[in-house]
């Protein structure tokens, strides 16, 4: 199954999505009241703009309910956050110009043959016994 690639999102868009994940579905007014409690019509337009961007990125879908548009997240929280973390971590990992992460394994694009070879090596190679010289740790 091909893994879905999500478009990159901003902090403000993520805040709107957090609210949608929490509520399930919401109108623009609901989101405005939750994110900008003191907000007026200008904040209503801000939320509307953020939602239209999220719809364009296919992260939110909307439906008409009588007079209002109802918005709902079309992506699971863990999928989106995990995908974003992975994307940023790749740029901060060992192969980047600006490494900041210390990873357990440097993940390279290993082929299936290479992985099979490593598994076979692990299965066949016995654990070598320590000699009479006991190294200090």
């Amino acid at each position, binding site marked *: 199954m091909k893994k879905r690639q999500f478009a990159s999102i901003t902090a403000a868009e993520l805040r709107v999505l957090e609210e949608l994940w929490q509520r399930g579905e919401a109108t623009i007014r609901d989101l405005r009241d939750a994110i900008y409690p003191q907000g007026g019509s200008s904040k209503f337009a801000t939320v509307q703009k953020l939602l239209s961007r999220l719809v364009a990125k296919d992260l939110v879908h909307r439906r008409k309910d009588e007079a209002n548009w109802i918005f709902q997240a079309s992506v699971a929280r863990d999928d989106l*956050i995990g995908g*974003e973390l992975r994307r940023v971590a790749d740029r901060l990992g060992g192969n980047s110009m*600006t490494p900041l992460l*210390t990873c*357990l*394994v440097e993940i390279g694009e290993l082929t299936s043959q290479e992985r099979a070879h490593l598994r076979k*090596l*692990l299965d066949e190679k016995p654990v070598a016994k*320590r000699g009479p010289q006991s190294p200090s740790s």
Partner: protein
Amino acid sequence: MPWLSCVVSNVLLALLLALAAWFVQWRIRRPAIAHVLWVLVLVKLVTPPLVNVPLHGSPGIMACTLGTCGCRQHAPRQTLVYDTLPWVLLATWSAGAAVTGWTAWRRWRRFRRLIAHTSPAPPEWQSLAASLASELSIRCPPEILAMPGRLSPLVVPGRYRPRMLLPMALLGQLNASQSAALLLHELVHIKRGDHLVRMLELTVGVAYWWLPIVGSIGRQLRACEETCCDMAVVAHLPQSRRDYAQLLLDVLDFVNPLPEQAVPQATAMSAAKGLEQRLLAILDATQGTRHTWTAGVCTVGLAFAILPCGLRYDFAGRPTPVTSSAEREPAAVPIGPGPRLAVCPVATSAELEPATGATHLPSSDREGEPRVKDFCCSS
């Protein structure tokens, strides 16, 4: 151009240290010593030289090539070099460093913002990590977080204490032995301060964005870190060697699951080879941590001695343009006994002196005698 001289000197001495580190890592196979040397290579790159070691002979040729020799033959070039080139270089360097630094800062800020959406790791992992941290005498235990997504377990520097990020989906797939090995590996990283070395690496990467060897130094540094951590884990959990090696492959499969129909891909030979060597080292109990303190102290002591040193070049002395084309021809002059050298004629006091000023040049210049340091080439 004192700053340019410092940079060239630092890069040359860092290359010298890097050669030593490479030799210790791959020939003598002492990852702990090699790690210290690689760190010193990075430190050397950002340390201003405190003690200058003058170089004779070759700087003259280098100075002539760069047009900073003071020879009349290269005078037209010298003015351009002295007036324009340093500023162009400095501006390019600063712009590149600013872009690299800004990119890193933006990515880091984004990563930190995403970390805010993670949750604390399950209590059993927290308690296991706490007991292992106390065994390792870690003064500032890390914050253990469980993150969504398919990432390798990792350690990042935090504001007050480091953070260990563990993928939530992986935690349920590990047995007790693998869990301990995973936590131990990351805790050893924290105890060694490897997450702080990343900050140094970042600083050098931003400052020396134009130096390709910085990336290679970082890779060697991380290879040494992983080897040292692997050794510490198998020394602490000698019965779990196979489980630990299995864990590395499990993490690999977790992060990049194979597609159902495997398609031949571009082969990352270095990654496969590196991982194979790592697995073999983990399984090989005869490869303990060899401590030869004399060799280690001598190597690291020598490296520390190089740190404050700098190489001084013949960049000093602003050149003076010459008007007479007849005087630009090189002349052969005898310099004591031995071979005759072809030298670039040096401006005499009369030529160097402005029309109205008095000369303050050394007597050799006043008499029109060439100086040894002004020789640009030998015949």
